[in-house]
């Protein structure tokens, strides 16, 4: 089983284990294809952290928009991050938020690769 480090070295922790498991049956060409597509579509957890931090400056919820949670984004925007409490929770929880999004992306990409 090829190590995911060779193709997607930026992955860490939960995301890395999940993707490693997801592509365990892929051959080299599929792995390269997967890495290319996944890299462009995933959202880096650091991006989520930074955009969540912007909430402290007055514009809250940007990270939610990035994660395609439009309703939540609007809610955060109107309430200054749910009276800042939401922003704080999201800052603690940012890795999980990013992983939730990325795992869905990984699943989709894997399906695309498998079908072609």
């Amino acid at each position, binding site marked *: 089983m090829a190590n995911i480090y060779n193709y997607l070295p930026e992955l860490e922790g939960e995301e890395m284990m*999940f993707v490693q*498991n*997801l592509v365990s049956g892929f051959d080299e060409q599929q792995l390269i294809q997967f890495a290319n597509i996944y890299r462009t579509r995933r959202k880096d957890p650091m991006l989520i952290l930074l955009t969540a931090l912007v909430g402290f400056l007055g514009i809250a919820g940007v990270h939610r928009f990035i994660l395609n*949670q439009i*309703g*939540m984004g*609007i*809610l955060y925007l*109107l*309430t*200054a991050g749910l*009276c*800042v*409490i*939401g922003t704080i*929770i*999201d800052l*603690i*929880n940012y890795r*999980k*938020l990013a992983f*939730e999004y990325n*795992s*869905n992306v990984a*699943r*989709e990409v*894997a*399906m695309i690769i*498998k079908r072609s």
Partner: protein
Amino acid sequence: MNGFKKLYHIFIQNLELVFWITGLTYLALISPEQAHFSFCPLNQAGISWCPGCGLGKSISMFFHLNVVQSFKTHPLGVFAIGIILFRIIQLIKNIRREQNGKHLQLSSRA
């Protein structure tokens, strides 16, 4: 001791879900008519132009089946409840998929 650690671990893993459920439950249980402690730091800092001001009270009123008052306090109270409920369901779906073994490559958008 081990039981407590396990509970703590579950809490940490589902921080957001716990937050939403706690929040909605709290709003459902308090009585919005009485003046009470406000969690909002903007409110306490004296900022009155926050567009989301009154959402908490609005949600609370809606839970007490006071729909007209809810809309008066803030027109988007129902919207907020809807969004939060949708998010709660989304998070619960994630947990269930995780328990069933999410290594299945079926792409069902959570």
